[in-house]
């Protein structure tokens, strides 16, 4: 048996809220062996991060570790006070943690080299010179070039991905045996995420340490973890070997999650089955199974018997559910019949609803007060697109690719510098705001962050009803009230919630409000700017399905923006991939996934892990290095050239969009050769 390096037994952590103890972690046990990569999976509020913070005793007031043991090499470390010498040696020295927010996790006023060196000197007796050398070594290890110069830079001079590399260097600095990556790659682009996870895996192997990946992303889990723990409402519901769990999920929640998330290798016709309802309020947890209220499989036992405990269903595979695997399968057969296959109608009329012709938006890099004009940076560079009535176009690209800028040009939040944006054949670029007013009712938008895009002081009803007043769509107060109720029902919200304010809703409900607001003015076209990126995985499917349903019912046309290709697959008819302001590939949905031509599209696809360990093993992956910004200053030829594995001299020449098969366009000078490869 492998050396058991860390074992957590029956850990309970609570928070005092209004004189009541809320158990965020409720009897969690798990273990890690040396050299192993495990994963703790759960949605926000499941207690997965609190568990990890408890291990290091980083829980601050009003939180408190109430019970349990954390055995490091067999020694209970919870018996040391949080600020004791022993505990401090463990933190960073034995177990180190990489946090989610790379933008705020580094001290903004200290040089990055200093922040790494500090950690080395804390745990090792070294001279300053030696620590300095080790710092440089670490920076090289995590893939930071020019380390001698960069160590003296400050965090704000690094991109998000680079900052996370520095966080990893800090975590590795003192040679800890256990790395905890707490949603460490969540906020990053898919290609950067793949690079970082790959690197962590390498480093863990090289130093024979262990890695705990805490995430909500089942794809990452399938690609990297050897064992999984699924957390829900502060408890572990299922645990076991990755292969086992993905092949035979034994808990309804795990099954639900796997059905709810979109997969790259999905059949386009597969209906995403969301998990209904909301995660429980931890303040009043019942004595029964915590998942029962949302569980489609639940029977009488689940409401009558006590909370199910983890028990072995198979060798090394544990689940906390009253139902046996056979019973679950049986239940599944029944409701599979009930799932209606919806098919999106696609193009309704051969009518061009929105047409972009050579749209360009450039920004001047600010040169400062005394410097005068700076360089011009083209955020959107000669983009042409056509969307027909009823069509859903997925627009995909990583941060900095210009997709949001393009969206803002269409909404006329930004004024495009060149080109034409034709809505129903009428160019909207030269229109004055006054002339736009009628059109604004027809072009709507849904934003990414449901938490900050709704006015916190307005009631839900007035948020949804505001467009009605602006566009004078209703004449009487009764008509207004009726329409608002109707809009609430359209997005499956209870009109009785009208008088609440935004913070009383959950993330998914808020996004429904955002959708209802977008629908209020009876638009023809809705621009959805990453509408589900900020939501929990079990909720995402609800919103995707809702949007698809509404598109059918109301004959809507969408541009659906996302940063990742797995999300848009289900909903889109056509997909456009953007890189550095240009559309590099555009094709009908299935064609794009079957036959991606542009090296960037290929890289994007292979960076997304598929939540299935069997598939993952078979997959050939194309890795690209670097980040989007690496090519930003490249002017001649292809912007992707510096990162492209297939780049040759030819790529320095200017490019033309070429049609490869019908409707499949690609912007790449290598395209002839690529054709042969396929």
């Amino acid at each position: 048996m492998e050396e058991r390096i860390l074992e957590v037994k029956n850990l309970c952590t609570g928070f005092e809220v209004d004189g009541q103890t809320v158990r965020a972690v409720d009897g969690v046990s798990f273990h890690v062996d040396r050299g192993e990569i495990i994963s703790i999976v759960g949605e926000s509020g499941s207690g997965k991060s609190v568990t990890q913070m408890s291990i290091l005793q980083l829980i601050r007031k009003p939180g408190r570790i109430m019970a349990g043991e954390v055995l490091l090499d067999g020694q209970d470390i919870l018996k040391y006070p949080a600020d004791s010498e022993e505990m401090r040696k463990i933190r960073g020295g034995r177990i180190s943690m990489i946090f989610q927010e790379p933008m705020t996790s580094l001290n903004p006023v200290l040089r990055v080299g200093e922040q790494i060196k500090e950690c080395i000197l804390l745990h090792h007796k070294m001279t300053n010179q030696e620590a300095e050398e080790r710092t440089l070594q670490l920076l090289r290890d995590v893939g930071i070039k020019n380390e001698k110069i960069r160590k003296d830079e400050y965090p704000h001079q690094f991109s998000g991905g680079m900052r996370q590399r520095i966080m990893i260097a800090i975590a590795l600095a003192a040679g800890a045996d256990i790395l905890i990556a707490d949603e460490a790659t969540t906020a990053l682009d898919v290609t950067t995420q793949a690079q970082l996870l790959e690197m962590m895996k390498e480093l863990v192997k090289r130093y024979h340490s262990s890695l705990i990946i805490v995430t909500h992303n089942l794809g990452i889990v399938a690609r990297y973890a050897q064992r999984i723990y699924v957390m829900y409402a502060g408890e572990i519901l299922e645990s076991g070997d990755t292969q086992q769990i993905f092949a035979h999920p034994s808990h309804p929640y795990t099954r639900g999650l796997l059905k709810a998330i979109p997969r790259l290798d999905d059949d386009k016709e597969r209906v995403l089955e969301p998990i209904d309802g909301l995660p429980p309020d931890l303040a009043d947890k019942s004595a029964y199974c915590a998942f029962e209220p949302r569980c489609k499989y639940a029977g009488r036992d689940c409401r009558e018997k006590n909370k199910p405990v983890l028990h072995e269903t198979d060798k090394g595979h544990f689940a906390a559910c009253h139902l046996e695997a056979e019973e679950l399968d049986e239940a599944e057969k029944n409701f599979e019949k009930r799932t209606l296959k919806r098919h999106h109608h696609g193009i309704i009329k051969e009518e061009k609803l929105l047409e972009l012709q050579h749209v360009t938006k450039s920004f001047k890099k600010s040169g400062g007060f005394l410097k005068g004009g700076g360089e011009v940076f083209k955020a959107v560079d000669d983009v042409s697109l056509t969307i027909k009535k009823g069509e859903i176009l997925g627009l995909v690209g990583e941060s900095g690719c210009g997709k949001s800028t393009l969206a803002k040009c269409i909404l006329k939040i930004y004024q495009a510098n060149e080109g034409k944006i034709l809505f129903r054949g009428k160019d909207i670029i030269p229109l004055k705001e006054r002339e736009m007013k009628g059109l604004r009712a027809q072009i709507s938008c849904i934003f990414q962050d449901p938490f900050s895009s709704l006015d916190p002081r307005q009631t839900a009803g007035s948020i949804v009803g505001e467009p009605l007043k602006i566009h004078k769509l209703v004449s009487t107060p009764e008509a207004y009230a009726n329409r608002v109720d109707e809009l609430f029902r359209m997005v499956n919200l209870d009109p009785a919630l009208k008088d609440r304010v935004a913070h009383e809703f959950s993330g998914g409900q808020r996004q429904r409000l955002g959708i209802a607001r977008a629908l209020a003015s009876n638009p023809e076209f809705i621009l959805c700017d990453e509408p589900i990126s900020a939501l929990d995985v079990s909720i995402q499917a609800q919103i995707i399905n809702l949007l698809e349903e509404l598109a059918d019912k109301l004959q809507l046309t969408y541009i659906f923006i996302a940063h990742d290709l797995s999300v848009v697959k289900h909903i889109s008819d056509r997909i456009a991939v953007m890189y550095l302001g240009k559309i590099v590939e555009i094709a009908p949905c299935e064609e794009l996934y079957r036959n991606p031509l542009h090296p960037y599209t290929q890289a994007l696809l292979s960076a997304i892990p598929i939540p299935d360990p069997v598939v993952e093993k078979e997959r050939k992956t194309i890795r690209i290095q670097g980040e989007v910004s690496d090519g930003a200053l490249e002017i001649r030829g292809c912007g992707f050239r510096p990162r492209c594995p297939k780049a040759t001299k030819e790529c320095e020449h200017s490019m033309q969009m070429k049609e490869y098969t019908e409707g499949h366009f690609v912007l790449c000078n290598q395209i002839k050769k690529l054709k042969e490869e396929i």
Partner: protein
Amino acid sequence: MGKYFLKRFGQMLVVLFLVTFFVYLLLDLIPGDPVYAILGNKIRPEQYERVYKELGLDKPFLVRYGEWLSGLVQGDFGRSIYYKVPVVELLAKRLPITFFINVIVMTISTSLGIWMGIISAVRRGSKVDNFITVFSNIFACVPGFWIGIILVYFLAVKLQILPTMGFTWPWEDFALSVRQLIMPILVGVLTSLSVMTRQTRSSMLEVVNQDYIRTARAKGMKEKDIIRKHAIRNALIPVITLMGIGIGFIFGGSPIIETVFSIPGMGNLLVSAIGNRDIPVVQACVFIMAAVICMANMAVDIVYGLVDPRIRVK
């Protein structure tokens, strides 16, 4: 950094130039004839003539302003009408005293305020925190002259342990100097301390909840070192801004303190000059105060750049 400094310096010169303009406008803004306003109505025509010329009122405004400005650049503030000596001579005696007291007040109140703010934030909710909060709040709402009068009443009149007034340089009579300085400095510190303390406390509380402090804890650093190395520098960024304002506050308060304790400083000079309608002296005092505040703010911006690398790059 050099560029940043030059830019700030340029901005300061613009501000100072505007200040001179408004200060000079003072003369023309006095209702009625400035000469009568200064000397009263019962004067002989020769007297009127002399002062009229002395103020340069026989020339157009811009010419007068130009002459005054060129004098000012060369360090000539004109002549005092009341004392009948060059204003510079008055300032040479008075200004150092005010500076001396204010620098001491500034140093004590900043360092004490920051220290108290940190203590109170680190030990949030403790007795020390409560005490500091109550203590600084009390003095935040009591006017300085009142504290001054109370101090004089108890320490000087009743207990007779300190002299009621006056100023002596430490090198002339050290013991007397210290005894005379205790009360004015105490008043200055007490009135300016609370803002500093409360700003430090709140910005410190914000900083200790930041993610990078969590990172530092996860590294295994001692709480003391986290505060010292990671928290304080970040917490001081807003406090530094306040220091600029604080300098203005303290200088603005010096007329009161100097009047209460009869200290022959610039504040006192300003108050009596206003009473005596000694316009050139008023102009000089106001200009110097404005200049001090401008320079303080520039210094603040430079320190800001040193502390926060994000500003330096821009």
